[in-house]
C-alpha cells in the first residue's frame, strides 16, 4: 500500500478479520483512496456503520468511528450531521443492515437529502450470521434460510433510493477498483445524500452455497455481468437483459441539502417569524 495511505488506517488493528477472498477489504481500500483523492480532512470525517461483516470496516479506519446497532447507522449518522453539518459523515453498511432492518432509515434519509455518503457493501447475503438471505439475494439463489432457493424478489437498491429521492446514486464492484474509487470520490463531494452500491463477494457464505468455485470466479462474475452506464444506454433491449449497470446512475445537484434547509429554519425562528 502507498505509504501516504497508511495514516488512514489504525495499523495496530490490522490484519483485518474478514475471511480470505472476501471483497470487503477491497471496498474499504477504495473508500480510503477516495477520501485521500478528494482530500477530506481526517479530523473532520466520521465513519458510521451498523452491524455485519461490512460494518466492521470503521474499526480499521483512523477517524472518529461509530459501530452502532443493526440497521441504524444512517439514523445515528443523521444526528451527527445535524449536530455538526461541517463534518463529512460516511456510512458503511451491508445489504442486510441497510436494505432490510435499516430500509426505513435509508429511504427517509434519501427523502430528506441529508448530506451523508452511504456505501452499501452488497454481497447478496447475510455474511456475519452465516448466510441467511437478504433483500438483495437474487431469486432462486440458496441461503441457509432458503435451502430450496430464495423466492423473495430482490430489490434493485439503486432504484429504491432513486424513488426515495437520493440525489447521487452510483454502483461499483470490487472487481472494478479504479472505477469504484472514482465514483466514491464523486459521492464524497456531492452536496446531498449520496448512495453507492458496491458488489462484493462473500465466498464463504454465498459463493460456496451458490456454485462459485472460489473468490476469483466471483470476481469474474462481477466483471462479466456488469456494464457501465455509458455502454448500457447504447445497448439493445435484448443485450440489456441480465446486465447490472455500474457507474454514476443519477446525479442531481439542484436540491437543497437538509442541514442547509434547516439553517433557514433557524434564521426564521430567530427573526421570530412563523412564515
Amino acid at each position, binding site marked *: 500500500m502507498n505509504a501516504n495511505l497508511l495514516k488512514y488506517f489504525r495499523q495496530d488493528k490490522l490484519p483485518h478479520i474478514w475471511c480470505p477472498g472476501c471483497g470487503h477489504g477491497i471496498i474499504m481500500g477504495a473508500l480510503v483512496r477516495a477520501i485521500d483523492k478528494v482530500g477530506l480532512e481526517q*479530523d473532520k470525517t466520521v465513519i458510521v456503520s451498523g452491524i455485519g461483516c461490512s460494518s466492521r470496516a470503521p474499526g480499521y479506519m483512523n477517524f472518529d468511528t*461509530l459501530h452502532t446497532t443493526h440497521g441504524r447507522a444512517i439514523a445515528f449518522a443523521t*444526528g451527527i450531521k445535524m449536530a455538526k453539518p461541517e463534518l463529512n459523515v460516511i456510512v458503511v453498511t451491508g445489504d442486510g443492515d441497510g436494505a432490510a432492518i435499516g430500509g426505513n432509515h435509508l429511504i427517509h434519509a434519501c427523502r430528506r437529502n441529508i448530506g451523508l455518503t452511504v456505501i452499501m457493501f452488497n454481497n447478496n447475503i447475510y455474511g456475519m450470521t452465516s448466510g441467511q438471505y437478504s433483500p438483495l439475494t437474487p431469486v432462486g439463489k440458496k441461503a441457509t434460510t432458503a435451502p430450496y432457493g430464495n423466492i423473495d424478489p430482490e430489490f434493485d437498491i439503486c432504484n429504491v433510493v432513486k424513488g426515495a429521492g437520493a440525489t447521487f446514486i452510483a454502483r461499483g464492484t470490487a472487481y472494478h477498483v479504479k472505477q469504484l474509487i472514482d465514483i466514491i470520490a464523486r459521492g464524497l463531494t456531492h452536496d446531498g445524500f449520496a448512495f453507492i452500491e458496491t458488489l462484493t463477494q462473500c465466498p464463504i457464505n454465498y459463493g460456496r452455497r451458490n456454485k462459485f468455485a472460489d473468490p476469483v470466479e466471483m470476481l469474474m462474475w462481477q466483471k462479466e455481468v456488469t456494464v457501465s452506464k455509458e455502454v448500457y444506454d447504447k445497448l439493445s433491449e435484448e443485450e440489456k437483459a441480465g446486465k447490472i449497470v455500474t457507474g454514476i446512475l443519477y446525479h442531481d445537484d439542484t436540491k437543497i441539502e437538509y442541514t442547509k434547509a434547516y439553517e433557514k429554519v433557524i434564521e426564521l425562528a430567530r427573526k421570530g417569524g412563523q412564515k
Partner: protein
Amino acid sequence: MAEKQILLQGNEAVVEGAIAAGCRFYAGYPITPSSEIAEGMARRLPQVGGKFIQMEDEIGGMAATIGASLAGLKSMTATSGPGFSLKQENIGFAVMTEIPCVIVNVQRMGPSTGLPTSPGQGDMIQARFGTHGDSSIIALTPSNVKEAFDLTIKAFNFAERFRSPVILLLDEIVGHMRENVKLPGADEIEIINRKRPTCKPEEYFPYQPDEDLIPPIADYGTGYRFHITGLYHDKTGFPKGQSPMISDLLLRLHDKILKYQDEVTLIESKYLDDAEIVVLSYGGIMGSAISAVESARKEGKKVGWIKLITIWPFPDQYLLEVAKKVKAFIIPELNLGQIQREVQRATLGKAEIIGLHRVDGDIIRPEEILDKIREVL
C-alpha cells in the same frame, strides 16, 4: 433573565427545562400523550440555534439523539409506551457506550396501544429493565409541572455528570396538567456539562475512567479520533471479549451510578417522625396521596407520606430504615404494583405492604386513599 411566572403544561415544562439545561438537539417521533414535547422542541430549538428533527420512527429518534450527543450537543428524545419499547435497543447502546442523553417517557395505559389518552404508570419496570443485559440507569419522576421543569434540568445534569442516558418518567396526568409556575432565571439554574478530555489526542482513551469512575468524553470532529462500539470494549473503545475485562466494564457501568446513590436519590416526605403508616407514591397521583394524608391527619391518624422522585436506582436503604419504624406502607399506583414489588423487596418484610391499584385509565382520588388509610388504622 429574572424569575417569571407563566401558565405551563407539564409537557411544555419539559421543553422549557430542556432548553434551560442547554439541550440543543431533539429527535423523535410523535405519540400521544408526549407529542407536545416534540411540538415545543420544534418551535423552541431553532430559536436558540438548536436542531429539531422528526425521524421516521422512535428507533431512529433514539439513534439520532445519541449521534448528536457524540457530536457534542446536549440531546433529548421523548415518547410514550409503545415508542419507549422501540427505543430500548438503542438505550442499551447508550448505556454501554456511555453517551449522555435524556429520554422522556410520558406514560399511558398499556400493554400495546392500550389507552392512548389515559394516564398509566405501567413503564416503571420497563425503564429499569427494558433493554437487554444487566444495564444500569437513572430515572426520575416529576409529580407536578414545576417538578417537570426542574427534573428535566436534573436529568440533563445527571446525564452529563455520569456520562449516561437518563430517563424522565412522566405520566399523562403530569404531562397534560396545567399550572402557574415560577421559572427561575438562568443565573439561578445549576448547569453541569460533560467532562471533556484535557490530554493530547494521542493520549486519549475514550473509556479510561478517572478516579470518579467516569471517563471524559471528546466531541466527534475535534481531533481525538476515537472508536465507539456497543460490543464489550476496553479503555481504547475497541472490542475485547476477554474475562475479566467484560465484568469489569459491566460492573463499572453500575458502580459509576451506585457510588453516587446519595447524590442521585431524590425523595420528599412528611410526618414520618410519628407515622404508623406511610403512603408512598410518585408522579401524577402524588397530589391525591398528599391530600389523603392531610385529611387523615385531621382525623388524628398517624400517617405520613413519601414521594419517590428518583425511581432508579431504587432507594432500598432509605425505605428499609423507614420500614423498621412503621407498621405499613400504602402504595397507590396506576399499575398492578410495579413499585410495590420493589418496596416489598427493599423492606425485607419489616412492614406490611398494601397496594392500591387502578388500571382502568382513571386516576386514583384522595378519597380512595383515605378509605384505605381508615381500613388500616
